[in-house]
């Protein structure tokens, strides 16, 4: 242990601990801006500066380790002045029109300025210009960027895609697309992790709330909305409603209040996905020589974009099943449209997703089962919170409401689609049933849960057949797993991959709580919802069974293929 004083208090810390972490453990707060624990400890912003008594230069607490016997001051006049000047300098290159910013009220820089009592900037404010295609789902506003480098770090170290890079030199240094590529040509998965790790409003998703409001205001349109599993674990965060209270039924009530004609649940189509993907897997497993293994899940569009651009030779190993979002869209504008007797072009289908990549998925030109777009527009969890605010709805005060029928039923197996390992677990529950004719213990496959290691693997016996499965979340982990598979170091039958660390719980469209990784907490909440659900198996979802009975006949039928499966080769992820 290293002994030191911080603000006169005796502190002991393990060798190698940063001054920042040692202070935090002692209850002393040092303000930070660029810092992200373990990911970005580079001393760039110079906000976390501290003084070491007897030494002339100030040090960045985030990346300077504790030293035996030093006396650290975190609030000396010298420190306060340096922090203040550096903050003013950062602000002088920042577009400070906070009122129109996507991060207004949830911005690290804004709160730092407030905490520092800045009431005037000594320097002229001359932000660089924004230069971006704002029709694209992911937007970067150069005028807001504070060059903290977090986007580069998350993309390099966690997602392994290296989309962002330092560009220019000296005071003109900024962040650009690596290799000077147009963004549309970069291999970006649109996972949105750079957005959720940006401390300010320099990175954000395209705001589609206006499109949704226009549809809600259009008397000719029948508006329906689906809510993805992981949204129910997080939407309350953006509105200050605690997780328990922010139930999906309360969100359903809010959306109905906002004007949606039908409020449905993506859980319905998650169960449908399991029927199709589970059957596809069993089909492949029983004709092993005819197929390449493992079979990869296909419900995460970030992952699909990733494999298409980075491992094109492995795309034929993806399940052909559409994602739950797109299955829902396809069923809504065919089966449901027929049921209510309207033409699909009258239906405006909105989905609420924890995801930024879904915005691009719904625009894939082949996703038009009814002739119209399966899903018209995608709002992220953040946007739906904004939509609720725009409509002046006090969501916390609303009573819970049920989903509409029939696309509103979902099993516990569907809820956990939002957590890493959930799709695999749900698929195995039903695959077991499909093979053996009886249900396994609902929690028989929980070994694939969790966030540890680059990937988790397990072997399960279904009837006398051994099924080897693996689960990875985060694209850096996915890359490690794919490389191992490609090199023949490991082999599996079925592999689930989610682009975001922790799965959709940590999705790039989820509410942002700077400095905190909430995927684990949100995933836990989903597992609780699963355990509480009276139906734990996708194949027991009554509405799904009815859909097959009335419309699709059976999993993998001709009709199912037409509506629920897709050709991953029919479109390009890169322009």
């Amino acid at each position, binding site marked *: 242990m290293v002994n030191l004083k911080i603000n006169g208090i005796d502190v002991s810390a393990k*060798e*190698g601990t940063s001054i920042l972490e040692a202070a935090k453990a002692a209850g002393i707060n040092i303000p930070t801006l660029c810092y992200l624990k373990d990911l970005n*400890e*580079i*001393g*760039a912003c110079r906000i976390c500066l501290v003084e*070491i008594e007897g*030494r*002339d*230069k100030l*040090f960045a607490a985030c*990346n*300077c*380790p504790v*030293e035996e016997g*030093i006396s650290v001051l975190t609030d000396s006049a010298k420190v306060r002045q340096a922090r203040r000047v550096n903050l003013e300098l950062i602000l002088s290159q920042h577009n400070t029109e906070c009122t129109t910013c996507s991060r207004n009220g949830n911005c690290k820089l804004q709160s730092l300025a407030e905490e520092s009592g800045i009431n005037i900037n000594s320097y002229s404010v001359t932000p*660089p*210009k924004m*230069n971006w295609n704002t029709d694209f789902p992911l937007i970067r506003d150069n005028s807001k960027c504070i060059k903290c*480098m977090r986007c580069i770090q998350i993309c390099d170290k966690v997602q392994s895609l290296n989309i962002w890079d*330092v*560009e*220019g*030199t*000296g005071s*003109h240094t*900024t962040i*650009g697309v690596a290799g*000077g590529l147009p963004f549309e040509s970069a291999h970006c998965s649109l996972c949105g992790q750079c957005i959720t790790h940006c401390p300010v409003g320099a990175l954000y998703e395209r705001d589609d709330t206006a499109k949704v409001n226009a549809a809600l205001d259009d008397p000719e349109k029948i508006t329906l909305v689906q809510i993805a599993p992981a949204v129910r674990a997080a939407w309350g965060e953006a509105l200050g409603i605690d997780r328990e209270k922010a139930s999906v039924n309360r969100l359903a009530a809010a959306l109905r209040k906002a004007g949606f004609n039908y409020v449905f649940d993506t859980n319905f189509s998650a169960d449908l996905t399991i029927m199709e993907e589970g059957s596809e897997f069993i089909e492949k497993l029983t004709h092993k020589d005819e197929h390449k293994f493992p079979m990869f899940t296909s419900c995460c569009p970030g992952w699909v974009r990733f494999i298409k651009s980075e491992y094109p030779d492995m795309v034929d190993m993806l399940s052909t099943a559409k994602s739950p979002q797109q299955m829902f869209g396809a069923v809504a504008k065919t089966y449901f449209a027929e049921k209510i007797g309207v033409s699909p072009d009258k239906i405006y289908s909105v989905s609420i997703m924890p995801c930024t990549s879904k915005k691009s998925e719904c625009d894939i030109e082949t996703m038009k089962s009814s002739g119209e777009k399966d899903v018209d527009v995608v709002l992220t969890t953040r946007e739906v919170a904004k939509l609720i605010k725009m409509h002046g709805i006090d969501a916390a005060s609303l009573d819970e409401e049920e989903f509409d029928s029939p696309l509103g039923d979902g099993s516990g197996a569907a809820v956990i689609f939002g957590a890493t390992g959930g799709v695999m677990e749900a698929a195995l529950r039903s695959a077991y049933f499909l093979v053996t004719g009886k249900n396994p213990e609902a929690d028989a496959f929980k070994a694939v849960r969790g966030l540890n290691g680059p990937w988790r693997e397990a072997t399960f016996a279904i009837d006398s057949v051994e099924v080897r499965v693996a689960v990875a979340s985060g694209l850096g982990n996915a890359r490690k797993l794919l490389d191992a598979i490609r090199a023949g170091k490991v082999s599996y039958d079925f592999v689930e991959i989610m682009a975001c660390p922790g799965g959709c719980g940590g999705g790039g469209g989820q509410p942002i709580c700077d400095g905190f990784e909430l995927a684990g907490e949100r995933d836990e909440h989903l597992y609780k919802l699963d355990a509480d659900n009276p139906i734990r198996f996708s194949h027991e979802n009554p509405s799904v069974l009815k859909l097959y009975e009335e419309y699709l006949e059976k999993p993998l039928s001709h009709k199912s293929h037409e509506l629920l499966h897709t050709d991953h080769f029919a479109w390009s992820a890169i322009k």
Partner: protein
Amino acid sequence: MGKLSLTAKSGNTLELEKMASFLTSRLSNAQQGLCPVDTVAAFVNVCLSQSCGKCTPCRVGLKKLGEIYDRILDGDGSAEDIALIERTARVIAVSADCAIGHTAGEVALKSVLAFRDDYESHINCNHCSAREEQPVPCSSLCPAQVDIPGYVALTAQGRYADAVRLIRKDNPFPSVCGLICEHPCENGCRRGMVDDAVNIRGIKRYAAEKAGHVPPPECAEKTGRHISVIGAGPSGLTAAYYLALMGHDVDVYEKRKFPGGMLRYGIPDYRLPEQILTDEINVILETGVKLHLDTDIGTDITLDELRNNSDAVYIAIGAHSDKKLRIPGEELEGVTSAVDLLRRIGDGDRPDFSGKKVAVVGGGNVAMDCARSSVRLGAESVSIVYRRRQEDMTALAEEVEGAIAEGCEVVSMMAPVSVEGDESGKAKYLVVKPQIIGPIGRDGRPGVRPADQPEVKLEADIIIVAIGQAIESEKFGEHGLPLKWDTIAATDECDFEGIDGIFCGGDCATGPATVIKAIAAGKVGARNIDTYLGYNHEFALDIEMPAPSLLDKPACGRVKMKERAANERKHDFALMEQCMTDEEASQECSRCLGCDHFGYGKFRGGRYFRW
């Protein structure tokens, strides 16, 4: 007439002088700007601050030039601005009334012509293509990319064996380089911005000496592949070392009686003692590398045989043949080449120059080695004859100073014309023609031409020609390898397009260069041979690195290496340089600014964890 007075400098003037000298040392000691447009913009503004303001082009032209640069850098430039800079700079260059203006215009003009791509990138993409490429200047300037801040920090902690292990990750010659590396690393040392570069080579020598014998790491599992290396110089032995560690079987074929190449046959003992070299080579041999001495390719074994009995061949034959002056009398007895003399000494045969007058022709490090060796061989007098000025010599300044201190006389601005012999056919005079310094040439060095003065006869019994080395590459050319002049024209990857299994690097591929460049080539060769054979062996950092030091770094003088007194050392071939003391080494290590942690290094490129 008014009275004259001696003008004392005002306080302001003195302060300004200090700032100017700070700027000079900042520019000369540390990295240049990154973006050529940004750099020239800054230069134009410095020039403007020097303008007296009398003439229009300098006073207004430089100001306007600065404005256009600002516009371009802010992303508001247009294509016409490039033409406008060119036109304005050209006019300033030819029409300013004095050098303050026209040199500024010339720089802007040169930059707009040379870096047009960067200007266009600024205008079309709002940024330039330049980027930070020297996050840790010392390591990135080292051809072998040795982790310098790493071993300096380890040395500071007294972890000498770890320091040696860390150096060996990239360079198997820590002791040798500690003594004779040209230390390009020090040229970019950021400490130069504060006071003076860290004495990196001196620290390396200290660490290596303190560490003593450090065994090499374990070799990887045997691959069963076999590689032949031609030449046991620094490049060949480096390649052999890494290839052996990768688990390959390596045989090294050396033409001479002893291994070491130019380390033994080019560098005299007083700079690099034979025992230190032998010890270092023995560590390399500990990896299982097999050495075949006295084995000439083409005579004892053919290249075809080597190709047939190995999976890959690395050629590193160095540059061991001499270049001739091509003047009358060169064939006389007493005229010898530097290569021949140093080789003779390397083989242990030290001629006696007692009572001889020696003239060494040349101004490079090899010339200094010959001159200083001649002193040690007992010469009555030694002159170093060079056709340019002393400051134009390519030898390191300390080598020239050392030679002078040992009694050598520099005869500069004299070009050899002929050698005159006595009646027995022995050299007696070196006839030289005085030269006059002339305009700066394309290489940035001033040229010389014969002066309007008569030739001079210098008395000389021994004339040593040290004007460069050549490469005995013909037989490799006959074998189908491409040659360029006398170098074997390998690619930057140390291989040949369209020729499988043959790799080549070091002096024989680049022409005579430095030891560290030869070592770097050996490293590149080893990596690319491993890849060629279908492997992916890696050398990873397995040493726990010390935490960065948070101490203030006040300005402090650089510890210089001391040498034994000239009067004493000139009588023997024992090592003349003295190692730093513990006190000196500790202080010198503490001067390192730790660019691996502070600055861009913490974000990117601070440490190469593996290669």
